[in-house]
Structure formats: C-alpha cells, structure tokens
C-alpha cells in the first residue's frame, strides 16, 4: 500500500513538473546572426572614423610637411617626409594631379615615431638621410620589415634604386648594409627609377616588389640584402614586369598604372600560405580629363609571381588613396590595418597618412564614447 501511494505521488509530481516545463518552453530569445567571415584579406578596408583615432582619422599630424609613404613595424611608424621649398617651385605637370611632387620639397628623409595614442603617432625624429652617392640626395618611401629576432630592416627608395638600413630593434639606430643598395635601377628595361619597395618572405625566399611609375617589378633574394630582378615571363627574351590581371568589369575605369605595392605573407585558418599584394591602381578618367582617381587593388599568389586579382577594390575613396602598407593587428577579431596616403587638396600636394581596417566591422571606438552613443 505504501509503495502504491509513493507511485501515485510520484506520478502527480511528474505531471506538475511536466506542466511547468511546458509553460516555460515558450520563453525563447532571439540570437544574432553570426559575424561575417573574411580571411582572404581582400577587404574592403574601412577608413577609421574620427572618433576612433587621435587625429580625426589621420595616423600622424605633420602640419605643413609633405609625407611620402608610411610603414609600421615593431610598434613604430616610419615615414618619408620633407618641408616644401619656399618659394614653391612649379609643379611637374607630368605627375598625376594628386601625387606629391618631390621637386617641390626639400630632399626627402626618413623619420620614425614610436609614441602612439589611439592610432595617432607623435611627430617623429629623423633616422635616415641620404649620404651615399647612389641615393642621389634623398631617401624616401620606407618599408619596414620586422625580422624574427626583433631586428628591423628599413627598405627605401632613392635615386639609384632600392636600399636597406638595418637596426637591432625598431627603436634602434639604423645603419646601411654596406652602401645600402640592394637592387639597382635597370633603366634599360624600366621606364624610370624603382621606388616604393615592399619586401616579404615566402618559403625562405625574400620577394621585393617596386614600381617604376607605371608597372611593378619583382626581385628575389636568399638573404634580403641583395636582390636579383625576376623575369615574370620566361617566354619572352626581355625581362618582364609583374602581370596585374585586368579589371573584371569593363564598366570600371581603365587603369593606366600600377604603383606602390605592399606585400605580406599570410596563412589562412586552413593552413594555406599566400602572398598578398596590395597595389595602387591609377585610373583614367571617363571623360578624358586629368582627374586622378585611384583605387587599391588586392591580389593573391602562391608563388609570388603569378597573381589573382580580387574582383572588388580593397579600398577606394574620393581623395585618391594610395601608397598602402600593412600593419597586423589583433583585438578580438583578427584585423589587418592598412596605412595609406590620401590627397589633402592643398598646394603643394602634401598628402596625409590615414588608417583603414579589414574587416570593416571591427570597431575601435573607445568604450566611454560607445556607451554614450545612442
């Protein structure tokens, strides 16, 4: 009899429990969509907003100084810069309208800033000025490459080609390797002197990309200190430049030059290693005017020579963005930051360094500001 009572009580309790569960079953909540995935680095890169940065979107505030590319390594920003000549010389009419004209500036030198707040660097100090005969009186367009041992190689453009200076750390003293020259111009095949070097390492080989004002050339090296120009097309007798695949959509503006490469090697979540190249593409205005429109292309390669082009630009904007360089970053999601220079719409053309991020959903708005944002 006792067992029977227990059984009945248990069954009644079970009925109550099931009724409660049934009642609670309808209490659901909405879950958000998962975040988009973006691991190929093709962007689009989003320009950092004023509230995310110290200088209203700019990475450094240089005042009345022309800046000729900026590159990040080891926590420091390296940039080429010079003050305008007074009185200002006539602008070279051959240059694209929104390019900085080096002829209007004092000889370019390379500076370093190591103090950063909210993606804004203090004005830096000079670390490299022209001193070798082959440099022709200027050094500019730095590309900083941080090595595994913490040392930093600073590749730069000068009159005679591409040079390198080395420091034991990003904050150390930079000294040239020998006379510094790692790849001399070959004006027999190049339209002009090499500039805007970008160096990365893929499968033990250093790849150096540099432009001659129209197209991009690639050179390789086993130690990164002496490069040999690479022929990208063995079927022709001459040494050929890099082939940039044409635009996918014929409605897009025609492209007249590919310059200012930026190179990096990345390993995808599946373990595939690719060499990514970002290139400034200078476009021909639809109406034939001298409007200087530019976009930044993203390309990918497994061998550093044959590239596939992303269908959409990695970045575009009305202020002629160009001279991209990269800064790896990790803050919750795996971001890549891209430094670039943009037109400042002044005379002379000074350009300004700004910062963009991929994926665009990454936010750097300080918590105290985001809390007050409605």
């Amino acid at each position, binding site marked *: 009899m006792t067992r*029977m009572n227990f059984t009945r009580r248990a069954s009644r309790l079970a009925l109550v429990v*099931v009724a409660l569960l049934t009642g609670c079953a*309808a209490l659901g909540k909405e879950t958000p969509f998962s975040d988009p995935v973006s691991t190929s680095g093709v962007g689009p890169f989003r320009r950092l907003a004023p509230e995310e940065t110290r200088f209203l979107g700019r990475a450094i505030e240089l005042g009345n100084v022309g800046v000729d590319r900026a590159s990040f390594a080891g926590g420091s920003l390296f940039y080429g810069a010079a003050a305008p000549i007074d009185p200002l010389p006539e602008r070279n009419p051959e240059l694209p309208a929104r390019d900085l004209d080096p002829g209007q500036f004092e000889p370019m030198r390379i500076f370093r800033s190591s103090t950063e707040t909210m993606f804004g660097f203090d004005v830096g100090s000079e670390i490299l000025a022209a001193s070798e005969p082959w440099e022709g009186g200027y050094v500019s367009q730095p590309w900083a490459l941080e090595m595994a041992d913490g040392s930093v190689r600073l590749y730069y453009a000068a009159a005679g080609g591409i040079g390198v200076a080395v420091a034991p750390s990003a904050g150390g003293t930079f000294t040239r390797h020998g006379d510094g020259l790692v790849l001399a111009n070959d004006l027999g095949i190049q339209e002009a002197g090499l500039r805007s070097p970008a160096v990365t390492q893929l499968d033990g080989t250093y790849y150096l990309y540099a432009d001659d004002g129209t197209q991009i050339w690639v050179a390789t090296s086993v130690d990164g200190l002496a490069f040999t120009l690479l022929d990208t097309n063995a079927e022709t007798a001459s040494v050929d430049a890099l082939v940039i695949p044409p635009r996918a959509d014929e409605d897009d503006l025609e492209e007249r030059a590919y310059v200012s490469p930026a190179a990096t090697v990345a390993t995808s979540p599946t373990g595939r290693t690719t060499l990514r190249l970002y290139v400034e593409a200078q476009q021909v205005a639809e109406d034939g005017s001298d409007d200087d429109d530019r976009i930044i292309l993203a390309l990918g390669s497994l061998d550093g020579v044959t590239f596939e082009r992303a269908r959409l630009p990695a970045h575009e904007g009305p202020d002629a963005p160009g001279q991209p360089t990269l800064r790896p970053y990790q803050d919750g999601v795996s971001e890549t930051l891209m430094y670039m220079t943009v037109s400042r719409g002044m005379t002379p053309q000074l350009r300004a360094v700004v910062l963009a991020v991929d994926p665009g959903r990454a936010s750097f708005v300080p918590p105290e500001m985001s809390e007050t944002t409605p």
Partner: protein
Amino acid sequence: MVKRIHLAGCALAIALLLGITGRAGATPGDTLGFGTRNINLGGAVTADVEDVGSNYYNPAGIVRGEGLRLSVSYVSVSSLLEINDEDSNVERMSGLTIGIVAPLQIGDFRFGFGLGVHLPDQRLSRTRSTIQTRPRWERYDTRPHKVFLSTNIAFRPIDWLLLGVGITFQSPSDLELLIDGDANLFRVDSTRLRHQFGGDLTSTRYPQAGVQFIASEALSLGISWRGALTLRNQLTAVVEGNVVVGSVRAPLEFRLDSNSVSTYMPQQLTLAFAAKPVERLRVSMDLTWMDWSKHPSLIPTEAITLEIDLSQLPVMLDIPDEIGGRSPIPLNLRDTLVPRVGVEFDAFQNSATLVQTRFGYVYEGTPFPVQRGATNFVDSDRHTFSLGAGVRLSNLRPTIPGHLQLDAYFQYAYLPTRNHQKDSLVDPVGDYTAGGQQWGVGASLEVVFE
C-alpha cells in the same frame, strides 16, 4: 504471435512503398528527433516504434500497441558550432512535442490514427534568406525552427504486418511589399511614403509511409519512407513614387522579385530491425538513405528592375546602367547513408515499476561538399551519442487507468572540424574551418491507457 518472416508480404510492402511518389516537406524531427525515448535510442526505432514517435519514424507503429497514448515532451539542443574558432551563434533548437496514438479495433479490423506536433519555443517558424558570402550552418540555422504537424493512419490487416501512411504539413511564405509616395532628396521631413505589406503563409504537404513486420516476439523489421519537401519563399517588393527635388518630380519605379528555396528536406528511405537477443535487452539498427543530391539551389533567383527619368532633375544622380539580380548556383550535394544504433536494457522491474536504461548512436555524414567556390553553406559530419533512462509506473488505478512513462536523456554530438579552402586566393570570404559540438536534453511524460 508470429513465428516466421513472411517474405511475400515483405516484397509486397516494399513494392507499395517504392511506388509512392509525391512532394514532401521538411521536419524538425530530422535534426532533433521525435519523442524522448526514440531520440535516446538514436532514432533506431523504425522497426518497433509504437509510441507517438510513430508519427515521425514509422506511421505503421500507430497500430502496434494496445492502448491510447498521450505524450508531451520537451527537447532542446544547444550548439557550440564555430567557424575559425569563433562561435557562429547557432540558435538553440528546442520545442514542445505533443502526440497522440490511438489504436482501435472494430471486429477483426485493427486500425489506428496518430497525430504529432512539434512547436518550436523560440518562434513558430524561422526563415532567413541566404547571404551568399556569409557562411552559415545550413542544417542547423533555420531548418529545425519550423512547426511540425503530422497526421497518420495505420492498419494491421494481419497480425504480423502493420501498414501506415500519413501527411506532414509545412508552410512556405508569399510576401508582398508595396511602397508609394514622394521621396524628397533634400527635405527629408517632406518625404511622404505609404507602404502596404501582405503575407500569405500557405500550406504544403508531403507524404510518408511505413511498414513493420513482426517476425517474432524477439525480432521486428521496419521500412519507412518520407517524401521530399521544398519550402519556397516568394518576395515581391514594388516601389512606385517620385524623387522630388524642389518642385521637380522624377517618376521612379522599382521592382524586386525574389524566389528562394528556404528549406529542402530530401526524401528518405529507412530499413530497420529491432531484436531482443536476451529477455531484458533490446538492440536496434536503422539505415537511412537520404536523397540529398536532388537539393535545389538555396541561392534565390532575383530579378530587379529600376526605372527613373532623371532628365528633368536639377541634380546629378549616379544610377547604375545595369542592376543585376542573382541566379541559383548548384549545391552539388551527395546522397548519404545514416546508420543509427539503439540499445535498451531493463535495469529493474517489479509489479509497479520498470526502469530502463538506453544508449543511442547516430552517424550523419554531411551531404554538403567542401565550400570551394561562391557559396558558403557550412556543414560537417555529426556523431551523436545519447544516454538516458525511462521509468514506467504501473498500478495507478484509480488515478490513471494505465501507466505513466517518464523518460529523459542527455545527448552529445561531435562535429569534426572541416577545412573549407577556396579555389580562389582572393575569394571575398576566404578559407575557413568549421566544426563544433552540440548538447541536448529532453524529458517526456507519456500516459498509456489500458
């Protein structure tokens, strides 16, 4: 009591099943299962199911038992599915399952009917259109979040042969959005737009059928078939109005027609057996063929037209020469064979109480190929293990003229990490890995009237 398998009857039943054709629908049961005991046994119950799970696993089971059964259960599966080690926010799949099985007998004619309902507790139905470039766990994102309603009838023409057929209902949607009025480019507060929204949740059905052969007290065989289901969503958006600048009005007409498949479940054929090799032990196995290769594309067909006369406007508007829609991309799914194994052991029994412990395992190979191209439908193989128990309380008169069955289980599913490496080095999404785990629990109460 049946002592031998009647091969002629089996052949007849198989022929009957394979001869059935028709259009069919999607079920949360494919993901969650149906009925606590059945889920606990890995779904390996097609051969001998007789509870409310008959409405999903095999309608023939409706007429297997002797008494009316009413059941209510709650099941829940939580996911920790990740893409590149980041949580994909796959929503918990859970809901209330209610069912009835009513076997009847008029003279020598034995028949029965059953009704099974699954009500998701987050929302009655969830549909999210595909964003081609955003990876999502296709089999777990929206498919289980549907109402399941199945009605079935069964017959027992001879003691060893049980036949059942049924229909399951699902609801596609047909939505229309109409907007008209004037949009003032420079004086937003002067913009006057009216909109009208209409939606039809229509009904679609798919058939199912099943057979059980009671070969002996210790052996049952089963076959079940479910038809395919395609849930299509039609969306039409029409904007008829004017773009206004100052006193100038430019007529604008925009139309979007989107036709998408929101959910597709393939036809399935299951062969099963259940045996009692010793008195207190039941083992069973199901093998299900799933016809995934006929899966239509989940990429919507979209047609967009935009007509606007800009000639009179005093401002320049940049209107693309051509606005493209989207076209379906083949999914290239492959058919799968899903094995299910269930073991049930009578751990304790006396005149008033029966305690059973259960174990189940399911292996579901993914039908989705590695996503190398433009689509990003993420899926992985799934190994599901279930462990649980049930208690039957008898001798409950006069409270209940029958017995109460209480069941509960815990379920763990492992989805091995899979690499999705793109053919293109500059794919907008890029390479990714996807894998994860799921945990499920469920409990039910069933009343069986004698």
